[in-house]
Each structure stands twice: as structure tokens, then as C-alpha cells.
């Protein structure tokens, strides 16, 4: 379903992001391969979420190039950008569901925006996504305020997957969930990723998530991507922050 002709899904070169005088990223390079699950970690304020927002076009970088699925995101025409937007889905931290719409209607928003399906088809697809996200069928008719935090995340994931995107961006998908809920959400992402084959760009703090579902991990430090590699590479790294992060008490608990 995905042609692997071009193996790189996201290619970032020389990225510089800046708010006022505060430089967040400086000369940042990163490659995300097709079909992989990449976890992005870093201390608070290292610009993990900013990086995600910059890739999907919510923040404008000062310099550098971002190529997503072979297309340069910067300076692209708005119509082409809309086409690109249909090929990625974003899950924001608390789901960012539209509060005036039911879960079903939330999932139908991107479908309506990018296709012209009949009402019946829209409903069938939204119900399908609700079920695939592991929500009970009656959740589709509920409003976001009637759902628990974990269910809102699942609904947000269902919306992110509405168009069967090639890339899914997840911003701290397990933050605020209990360990059991977080583990279940990890499994859900892993299982959907396996069967649908999308690429995952995941900002996270959850060592268990990094361990269970990430193929590679990118560490943000000193305004750039310090190291990219597997969990083993991380454990063997002698960068002080990475050692602290993966060998601290929590890190040891996660990889046993």
C-alpha cells in the first residue's frame, strides 16, 4: 500500500527555529525513514513539540529545509500543501477534538475536507475508525467532554487516521494516562502501525513507549538532534544527558 521507492519520509536539513531572540533549533538535521516508528525525546524546553509543529507547518522556521514525502514543505503552494496535509495525521496532546462536534463528526471533518463521500459512507468510515481505535461503538455519538482522557486520545487517534495517512505525528500520546492505559495505547499504535504501515513521528517522555514501540530514537539536545539510533545505541551512548535519561532510576525500571 505504500511504495517504498523513496525510503525517507521526512528529511530535515539545517533547520533553525526561533521565537523572538530565543533560538530553539540551530542547524538541526533529521531523517525519518518510511514505515518506522521514531521516538523523539529531550529535556523540557528542548523544542520537541516545536519540531513537530514546524514539520506540519504550524510554526515557520527561520532557515533550513523540510522535505515530507519528497516534497519541500517550505514555500510550497497552498494547494499542494493541502494535498500533503491529507497524507499526514496529527494527534495533539489532549486529543484537541473539536468540542462542539461528536466523535463521529470529528473523524468526518478531515474526510469531508479532502474527499466528497456520501453521508452513509462517511458514517461507515467514522464508525470503522472508532472501532479500530478501540473505542466502544456508542462512543461515536458522544461529545469530547463526555469522554475520559484516555478515550479522548483514542478518538484523537481515530481522527488522525481518518484519511489513512502515510505519516502520523503523535505529541506525547501516553502523557496523562495510567500505566495500564498507556500500555494499551502503545499496543494500539503498534498494532495499527503494523497493519496500516504508516510512519510514526512520536514525541514522548514515556520510557516504556520508547522501549515497546519505537524502532529508533532521536535525542534533542543543544538545539539539535544529538543522536539517532536504536534503544541499544542509547544505552551505550556516553552523552551525559542520554546516560542520565536512560540509566536513571526510571530508565532502569523500564528496560529491566
Amino acid at each position, binding site marked *: 500500500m505504500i*511504495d517504498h521507492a523513496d525510503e525517507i519520509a521526512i528529511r530535515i536539513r539545517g533547520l533553525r527555529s526561533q521565537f523572538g531572540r530565543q533560538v530553539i533549533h540551530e542547524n538541526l538535521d533529521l531523517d525519518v525513514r518510511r514505515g518506522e516508528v521514531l521516538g523523539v525525546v529531550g529535556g523540557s524546553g528542548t523544542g520537541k513539540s516545536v519540531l513537530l509543529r514546524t514539520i506540519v507547518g504550524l510554526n515557520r522556521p527561520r532557515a533550513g529545509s523540510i522535505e515530507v514525502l519528497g516534497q519541500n514543505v517550505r514555500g510550497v503552494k497552498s494547494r499542494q500543501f493541502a494535498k500533503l496535509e491529507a497524507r499526514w495525521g496529527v494527534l495533539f496532546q489532549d486529543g484537541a477534538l473539536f468540542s462542539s462536534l461528536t466523535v463521529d463528526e470529528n473523524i468526518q471533518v478531515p474526510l469531508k475536507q479532502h474527499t466528497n463521500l456520501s453521508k452513509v459512507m462517511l*458514517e461507515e*468510515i467514522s464508525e470503522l475508525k472508532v472501532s479500530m481505535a478501540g473505542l466502544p*461503538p456508542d462512543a461515536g455519538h458522544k461529545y469530547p*467532554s463526555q469522554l475520559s482522557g484516555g478515550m479522548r486520545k483514542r478518538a484523537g487517534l481515530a481522527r488522525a487516521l481518518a484519511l489513512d495517512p502515510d505519516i502520523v505525528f503523535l505529541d506525547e500520546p501516553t502523557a496523562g494516562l495510567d500505566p495500564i492505559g498507556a500500555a494499551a495505547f502503545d499496543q494500539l499504535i503498534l498494532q495499527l502501525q503494523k497493519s496500516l504501515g504508516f510512519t510514526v513521528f512520536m514525541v514522548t517522555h514515556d520510557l516504556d513507549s520508547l522501549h515497546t514501540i519505537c524502532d529508533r530514537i532521536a535525542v534533542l539536545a543543544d538545539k539539535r538532534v544529538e543522536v539517532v539510533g536504536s534503544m541499544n545505541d542509547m544505552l551505550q551512548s556516553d552523552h551525559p544527558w542520554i546516560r542520565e535519561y536512560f540509566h536513571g532510576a526510571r530508565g532502569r525500571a523500564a528496560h529491566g
Partner: protein
Amino acid sequence: MADRGWFEKSGGEDGLILAAHGAWDVGNVGDLDAGLRRLAIPASGRVSISLEQLERLDTAGAWIIYRTVRDWSASGIAVDVNGASEVQQALLDTVAKADKDWEPDHGDGTGFLQMVAQVGQSTEEIARESVALLGFFGQIVTTLAGLAVRPWRIRLIPLVYHMEQVGLNALPIVGLISFLIGVVMAFQGASQLVRFGAEVFVVNLVAVSILRELGILLTAIVVAGRSGSAFTAQIGSMKVNEEVDAMKTVGLDPMEVLVVPRILALVLTLPLLAFFADVMGLLGGGLMSWVVLGISPGAFIERLNDSVGMWSFWVGIIKAPVFGFLIGMVGCYEGLQVVGSAESVGRRTTRSVVEAIFLVIVVDAAFSIFFQFIGI
């Protein structure tokens, strides 16, 4: 990558063969689904779907293949799907696993029944809200009674702050509106009364209507829109932010900290605002009488003295603290009713203004009847 998805029919009476081509994805499923639904099934009742040449399949495409197979099988047609790649098969399995019995959308019957049900629900909600508001009234009264015994617990700084917000800062808008209403009353009154040669009664008309009703009513409506809504929005966003809960955990009573200063501020400042509105209204009326009818300011004041008693003034002012209490109560109540999201703050704010104005006018009517009854 293919942009189009289609299928080719072959085979004869003994079995239909469908070969899927191109992209069966979310952009094409609408047409594909319609095409599949239009298909004539041969008498033999055998169909086979081949995915061998399919270039692209996503969940939406897998869904219509799965659903078509499911529905055909249910109506006794033998269907088989072949040639699916490993990835495609995984996708078909995922979709099949996700297919549970959907709840039917709305089992509430016809449009008319739904309407009746909605009327019932709204009525029930209004009744429940009224009872809750009455309960809140009781809570305020007990809190106020407690504070009357321990007056040092009244929070003076917030009280003064809110008095400035709702009173002092409202002076320009209240004054302007009253002045203009005075002008309009005098102008319209004059154009009617002049036909009877009774233009001098314009003074009575302006004085009685401004002092008794319009001065305080307009003030109350402006304050409900300005301050009642602000109370709801302030307390509501504190609710969303869990500040109200945090307050409770450190032993602060939201009634004492949030509600009482706001209500007291309104009770104390609304009479003053109403007085200011009376003055500005009479000023507007007097000015217009002078300009249009040539009634000099001196004559206006003399006429004013003769025509309205002190009670006309007091009737207006007496109502002010009551209206202030109502506006403050509704504003704070709706603010505390906010749950969950920012959207709820917006909805409650609208309700707060509508309810406050409604209550003010209802109570004004009751006052009117009461004053008529006791003859002032």
C-alpha cells in the same frame, strides 16, 4: 501511484469475477461502493473478487470489500476474495475485527416524537435549574448571615475592586444610554402631546418614566450584559482551570471568596448607578424640552417639583439593590455551573445574561404590581 480505482467484470452465468484495479482508497470508495451496489449478481450466486492487480488499498477500500462480501454472504451469495497480498490481507483482517454491531444512530422515533421529547427535556432542565438556583440563593443567604455575625471575614479588597469594575467603570455607558433615552422620551412625547396643546406634560412623562422604570431598568440591563457576563466568564474559567477546587482544598470557601464580594459589589453600586442614570436621563429630557418645546431649565425644574413626588424617585432606587442581587446571583451561579471545556464557559455566559435580564424584568413587573397595590 494510481489516482483512480475501478474493477473489471468477467465470467458468465456460472460465476462473476471482479478484478480490482488502481487505488481503492478513501478518495475513490464512494464511486466504487456505488458501482458494487449496482452490480447484477448472476443466477448461480457465485462471485469471486480478485485483488491481484490492485495497486493501493487503505482501510476505507478494505472496508467496502469486507462489507460487500459480508452483505453478499448474508444474502446467500457465495463470495471469495483472492490474490490479496500479505499487507492487504492484514488490512482486511483489521477491518473485519473492527466490525462490531453498531448502535443504531437514534432510536428516538419520528421527528414529531423527537420534538415532544425535546420539549420535555427542556422543561425538565428548566425546572431543575430553577430549583438549583433557589438552592444557590439559600446558600448565599446563609453565607451572608454568617458574615453578618463575623463581618471581619468580608473580603474588603475584592469588594472594592469589584465595586470599581461594576460601578465606577460602568458610569460612562450607563450615563450615555440614560441621557439618550431621556432625549428620545422628550422628543417622542412632545410630538404626541403637542397635538393636545399639552406639551408641558412632557416633563411629567420624562420624569415618571425615567425615575420609576427606565433609569433603573436600563442600568440593570447594561450591568447584566457587562458585569453578569463577566462574573460568569471569570468564575467559569477558574472552574475549567480547577482553581475553584484548589481553593476548596486550602480551606477557602468559594462562596465567601468569589461569590459574596461580587454580589455585594453589585448590591452596593447598582443604586448609585441608578441614581446617576436618573440624573442623566432627566438632563437629556430637560435639554430636549428646552430645545424642542422651549421649556427653560428653570421651568423644567419647577414643573418637576410639582409633578412627581419623592416616592417616584424612591420606587426606582428601592429596586436597584434587588436587581443587583439577582444579576450577581445568576452570574456567579452560572459561572460555578461550568464543567469541562472552554465551550461550556461561552454557553453559560450567554445563559447568564439572558437569565439575568429575564429575572430583572419579571421582578420589575412584580414590583410594579406591588407598588400599585400599596398606592405609591
